[in-house]
């Protein structure tokens, strides 16, 4: 049976050192730590390379993966990512295996075993994220564990794509494996591989190939670790592992101590839960005292009947994405970092739902954790030595993943995500520079977008355009990085099933920083029965911007402007559909932005003339593209005077403001207004 959700959360922290580990640690010689910790990192990097080259799905090729090495007790020692998300959670099924199977005669843990898991109740994120786990033995003693995890774009759920928007409970979400042994004596079992092919019948070939890729990567770590143990001995490794955990913890504590004690808060809102529209709220309060942090998510909206729910350990794992990349970026990626951290995630909130809840879109439930972390930490760190790490959020209005399924032009059954749009989101603006345009993926900072040519070769689609989207970077003194807009044309096959999943179309999920704005939002755009192919065959001009297409409708066809979460539908050859990413949030007062930078942005189509004039208040000659400095100074002074004129005292503002409320139909799943406390019973069949 699964352990409690609190137990999973507790398992994120490292176990206390054993007497033997401390003995081994004290026996380390000068240079051992430096040489062999680097050696371990190289082993992990090698395994990550092997992983990418042996798998087939787009998320693997784009780098949304982790390979990790864990102590014999299951604590993460070092990882190569990918996404730090799985770095944390992969250790939970290891600890479950130790907890449930080590002394269970019918299972046990033996050399050559290969375990597999993808169920959130046992430590996973959501069931597309599948983890291969191998115990590492040396001279008949369990000395470590290895794992390899990556998102699988199909799970055999009620809809293609592994994250069904219509799911109402865990029973709608397809294959969910508790930790299970799928191989013995270093051999995968054919019967269990057959079982997976049977469960994932929309894309069986992809499932089998990617299972083998996970196992191959985990096994590479196993082989290299055993080779190293042969050279240096198991005792050195045990001491080294513990030293790495201790260094991470001490480094994290020292850094936290340097920040001002206090309480820091931020809030974010979304407007979509699977198939329905409703506001939801996510609250993050960080209490910093001494060298410890408490993350409190009290005030977050209740769990719901849809798939946008998570468990507490999943919430904590999303915080790791920020921590390992920013606040603790220079510390070893080990579970030691989590020792000074405490998480309060109220049971019954959408961040800590009931075990029967659908959680296949848990990564969307937790998206606001990714939004809020940089905001709250930046307010905590600005006054410290870590000011260079202060940043607004990246890709801050959530890019809706685009899923397609069908028979491709080579006759193979496929179901996959288009990896480009969300691997080219805008970076957050910083205290000293703009966010990086098309920087990557907020869930996996090292993610990379595949080339258009490769996508067109492997999928059914042509790209009408794929380019930087104007005005997609959050406005501010420093601009958020721009996003990428893609317009897809179904070309190679007569039809394909597609869907997208998002959490917002009408509200900005993101928050800017220190006066900066969040990025813009986008609708889902589709043109059915378009004449695009006729225009292209005739050599006629076609649009190169989704905003131009939406406003001028210069291609004929039936236009739809929808939520970014678009239910599954069939496209026919010649139909157009968008896949648009999100920019990063802005930093600082936009009236302080260098006018020459605004002009440069206009000339490179990153910012529109409309935005330059109406928001940045910069006068730019439409013909020359040059700044009129005098006119700009006048426009900006006018805006400052306008602010003083229209700005109200806080008391006056609150008197009017507190009487307002969003429309009732947008509060169906919010909880009580405005504190989001639970207001109804949820029953799942």
């Amino acid at each position, binding site marked *: 049976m699964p352990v409690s959700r609190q137990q999973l959360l507790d398992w994120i922290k490292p176990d206390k050192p054993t007497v033997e580990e401390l003995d081994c640690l004290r026996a380390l010689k000068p240079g051992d730590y430096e040489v062999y910790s680097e050696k371990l990192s190289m082993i992990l990097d090698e395994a990550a390379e092997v992983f990418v080259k042996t798998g087939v799905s787009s998320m693997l090729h784009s780098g949304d993966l982790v390979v990790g090495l864990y102590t014999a007790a299951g604590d993460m020692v070092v990882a190569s990512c990918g996404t730090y998300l799985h770095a944390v959670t992969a250790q939970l099924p290891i600890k479950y295996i130790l907890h449930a199977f080590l002394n269970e005669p019918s299972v046990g843990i033996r050399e050559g075993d290969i375990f597999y898991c993808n169920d959130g109740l046992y430590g996973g994120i959501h069931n597309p994220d599948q983890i291969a786990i191998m115990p590492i033995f040396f001279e008949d003693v369990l000395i470590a564990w290895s794992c390899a995890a990556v998102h699988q774009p199909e799970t055999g759920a009620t809809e293609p794509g592994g994250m069904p928007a219509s799911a109402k409970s865990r029973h709608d979400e397809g294959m969910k494996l508790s930790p299970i042994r799928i191989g013995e004596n270093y051999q995968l079992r054919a019967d269990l591989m057959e079982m997976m092919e049977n469960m994932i019948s929309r894309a069986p070939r992809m499932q089998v190939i990617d299972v083998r890729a996970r196992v191959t990567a985990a096994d590479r770590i196993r082989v290299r670790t055993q080779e190293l143990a042969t050279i240096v001995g198991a005792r050195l490794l045990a001491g080294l592992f513990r030293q790495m955990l201790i260094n991470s913890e001490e480094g994290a504590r020292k850094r936290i101590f340097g920040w001002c*004690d206090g309480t820091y808060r931020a*809030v974010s809102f979304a407007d979509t839960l699977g198939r329905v529209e409703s506001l939801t709220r996510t609250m993050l309060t960080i209490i910093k005292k001494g060298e410890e942090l408490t993350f409190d998510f009290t005030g977050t909206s209740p769990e719901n009947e849809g798939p946008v729910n998570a468990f507490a350990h999943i919430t904590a794992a999303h915080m790791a994405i920020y921590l390992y990349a920013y606040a603790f970026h220079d510390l070893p990626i080990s579970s030691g970092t989590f020792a000074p951290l405490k998480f309060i995630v109220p049971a019954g909130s959408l961040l800590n739902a009931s075990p029967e809840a659908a959680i296949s879109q848990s990564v969307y439930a937790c998206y606001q954790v990714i939004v809020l972390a940089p905001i709250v930490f930046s307010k905590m760190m600005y006054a410290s030595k870590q000011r260079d790490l202060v940043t607004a959020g990246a890709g801050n209005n959530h890019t809706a993943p685009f899923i397609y399924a069908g028979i491709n032009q080579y006759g193979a059954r496929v179901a996959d995500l288009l990896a480009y749009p969300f691997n080219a989101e805008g970076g957050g603006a910083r*205290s000293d520079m703009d966010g990086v345009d098309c920087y990557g993926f907020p869930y996996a900072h090292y993610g990379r977008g595949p080339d258009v040519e490769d996508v067109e070769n492997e999928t059914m689609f042509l790209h009408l355009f794929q380019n930087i989207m104007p005005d997609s970077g959050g406005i501010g003194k420093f601009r958020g990085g721009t996003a990428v807009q893609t317009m897809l044309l179904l070309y190679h096959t007569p039809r394909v099933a597609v869907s997208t999943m998002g959490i917002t179309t*009408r509200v*900005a999920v993101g928050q800017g920083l220190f*006066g*900066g704005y969040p990025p813009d939002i986008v609708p889902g755009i589709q043109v059915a029965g378009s004449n695009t192919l006729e225009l292209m065959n005739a050599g006629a001009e076609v649009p190169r911007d989704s905003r131009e297409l939406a406003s001028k409708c210069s291609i004929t066809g039936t236009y739809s402007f929808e*939520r970014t979460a678009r239910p599954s539908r069939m496209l026919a050859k010649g139909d157009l559909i968008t896949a648009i990413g999100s920019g990063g949030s802005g930093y600082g007062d936009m009236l302080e932005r260098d006018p020459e930078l605004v002009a440069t942005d206009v000339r490179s189509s990153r910012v529109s003339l*409309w935005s330059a004039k109406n928001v940045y208040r910069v006068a730019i000659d439409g013909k020359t593209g040059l700044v009129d400095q005098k006119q700009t100074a006048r426009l900006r002074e006018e805006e400052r005077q306008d602010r003083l004129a229209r700005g109200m005292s806080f008391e006056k503002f609150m008197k009017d403001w507190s009487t307002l409320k969003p429309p009732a139909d*947008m509060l169906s799943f919010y909880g009580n207004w405005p504190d989001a406390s639970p207001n109804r019973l949820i029953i799942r069949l």
Partner: protein
Amino acid sequence: MKRVTITEYLEIDLATDRWHCRSCGYDLISARQNYKEGCLVYPRDPATVYDPQIKGERYSFAPDKSVCVFVEFYCPGCATLIETEVLPPGHPPSHDIEIDIDALKKRVNYGQA
């Protein structure tokens, strides 16, 4: 005691326990209160920030003001935009920075800030 920088546009005077604007020095409010209560406030329609592009549709390229407002906090002295918070209409602004002033004073005395 000195003024300690807290954000891009805010500092705290530890002699008086007051929030000040870093751009013009304006005395905003007690540092033991929410600095936002010392600012001028304006609820901005997001469609004045991002051009919606599409007319007459429920979904466009700008957030919908019926569910999403950019609440701006200005310095009453120099009109600097100190902070923007994205909120549904009627939702209370957050108390985003609540510094432990006494702990900060100790840190300053020990040369740690």
